[in-house]
């Protein structure tokens, strides 16, 4: 459907101008800038990359400098095992975490959606409330639980289930646990709203037509909740790939996730072009899921009024 173009009135322009300018200056321009920096060479100057463009150079100056742009940073990333491993580990950890989260969140959301009506909003409210509390602190809380001398090992040994402490802390497994825990509310909310909306009469109709409870679930409940499953998975997978705090606090030194590698390149190595190229590649990796998420949201929010 073609959107009819419209001329805006003066007042409308004034309302639009503030957020528009802000977004252009503080979002679109910065994004364009890192795309540009990723094509530059590292330098010892401040800002630590070359060439820098400035309006004083004039068009000729900019063009001359533009010739010195290059894909060195990208070539270096392609050669560097560190980055390749980071990308693969990030996708793997995010994928495994998303799958585990779905398996935990689905029965949880289903139980809440089928709870007595007056309890439902209280339950889902409690389930997403941790989202409001500090992410950092929630990740930190797991250190005390997962450490070799932490509470979980302590409890398991006291119960004589294990003899020696399990090494969970500082492994990829700990990162997965941290992601599952931190992002669970994001998975719960779309699942819950998809499940809560389902008309109970549909299940009754299926049962009436001879479906067993298991068949009702597989043939009716699960297919109908698909939009919720997709939304939930995207909502947790995308940020999990670029996660920094969780691998940094719970992961070991060998846990290479792209967010952390990028952070180190930036703060420790001061290699801005490499970090920018890593960010651009991260976006490229996520572009598929991002577009799917964007489409889903557009469909939900841009319904023709």
């Amino acid at each position, binding site marked *: 459907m073609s959107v009819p173009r419209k001329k805006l009135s003066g007042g409308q322009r004034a309302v639009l101008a503030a957020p528009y300018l802000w977004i252009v200056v503080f979002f679109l321009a910065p994004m364009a800038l890192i795309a540009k920096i990723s094509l530059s060479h590292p330098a010892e100057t401040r800002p630590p990359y070359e060439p820098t463009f400035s309006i004083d150079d004039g068009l000729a100056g900019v063009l001359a400098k533009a010739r010195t742009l290059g894909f060195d940073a990208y070539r270096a990333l392609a050669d560097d095992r560190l980055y390749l491993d980071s990308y693969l580990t990030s996708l793997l950890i995010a994928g495994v975490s998303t799958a585990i989260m779905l398996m935990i969140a689905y029965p949880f959301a289903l139980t809440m959606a089928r*709870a007595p009506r007056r309890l439902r909003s209280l339950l889902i409210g409690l389930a997403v409330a941790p989202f409001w509390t*500090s992410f950092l*602190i929630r990740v930190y809380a797991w250190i005390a639980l997962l*450490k070799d001398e932490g509470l979980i090992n302590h409890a398991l040994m006291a119960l004589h289930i294990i003899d020696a402490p399990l090494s969970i802390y500082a492994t990829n497994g700990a990162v997965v646990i941290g992601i599952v825990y931190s992002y669970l509310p994001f998975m719960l909310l779309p699942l819950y709203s998809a499940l809560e909306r389902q008309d109970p009469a549909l299940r009754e109709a299926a049962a009436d037509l001879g479906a067993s409870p298991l068949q009702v679930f597989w043939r009716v409940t699960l297919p109908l909740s698909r939009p919720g499953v997709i939304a939930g998975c995207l909502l947790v997978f995308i940020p999990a790939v670029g996660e*920094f705090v969780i691998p940094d*606090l719970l992961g070991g030194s060998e846990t290479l996730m792209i967010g952390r590698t990028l952070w180190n390149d930036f703060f420790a190595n001061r290699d801005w072009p490499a970090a920018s190229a890593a960010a651009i590649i991260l976006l490229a990796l996520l572009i598929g899921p991002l577009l799917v998420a964007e489409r889903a949201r557009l469909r939900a*929010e841009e319904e023709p009024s």
Partner: protein
Amino acid sequence: MRFARSLVLLLGFAFLYGPILILAAMSFNASKLVTVWGGFSTKWYVALLDDAATLNAAKISLSVAALSAAIATLLGLAAAVALARFGGFRTRGLFFGAVHAPLVLPEVVLGLALLSAFVAFGFERGFVTLVIAHATFTMCFTSVVLLAALRGLDPSQEEAAMDLGATPMRAFALVVLPAIAPSLASAFLLAFTLSLDDLVIASFTTGPGATTLPMRIYSQVRLGVTPEVNAISTLLLAFVGIILAISALALNRPARDLA
């Protein structure tokens, strides 16, 4: 069946709240060891009072959160009004996409981009750049909340006000604002807590002299689990918990509408 459901709920909530509650309990542990209960004590809280750096970081975090949330709410409101009410203006698609893109953008990417821009613009990094960065990344959340509120509003309410002689501005102030007031409050709270909680973007965009509480906690956490960090964390959790409870009661609606 009933039993199975209760068990699922019990396990689910234990998983969600267990670690937080254990952390809070540990902050009252006189012993420095996680696995040893050395008796109830508030000494870690008392120690906090002498920690000037942490108190200062808390002050900065609260100011940044309040200021950036106010800016993000106003910008988000303007963006939502434009998207919900101005029809299909030129470059609307670009605007819609750009406003909401930070929702799904990895924080490291946004932080890096903002820092590069601040350096390129020649902005001295510190409190101001921190506020700008937080307003930018929380604006998409406020816009989503307010856009949903405006879409949920019957447009004929505004038309009725204009039909009865109110100018478009007055119709907005007299009819739309009261109707979306709860959503304005949730949008502000959302932006406030997101800003208060942010570590990654703050680390990129702040400068010396403007260390936020999450940055301070992070630097201490890297040194290991300490009872002092447990105490700050518990205070922060309690603070957000109280805000949540008050807003849930005041708005007289379930907390999920705020999310």
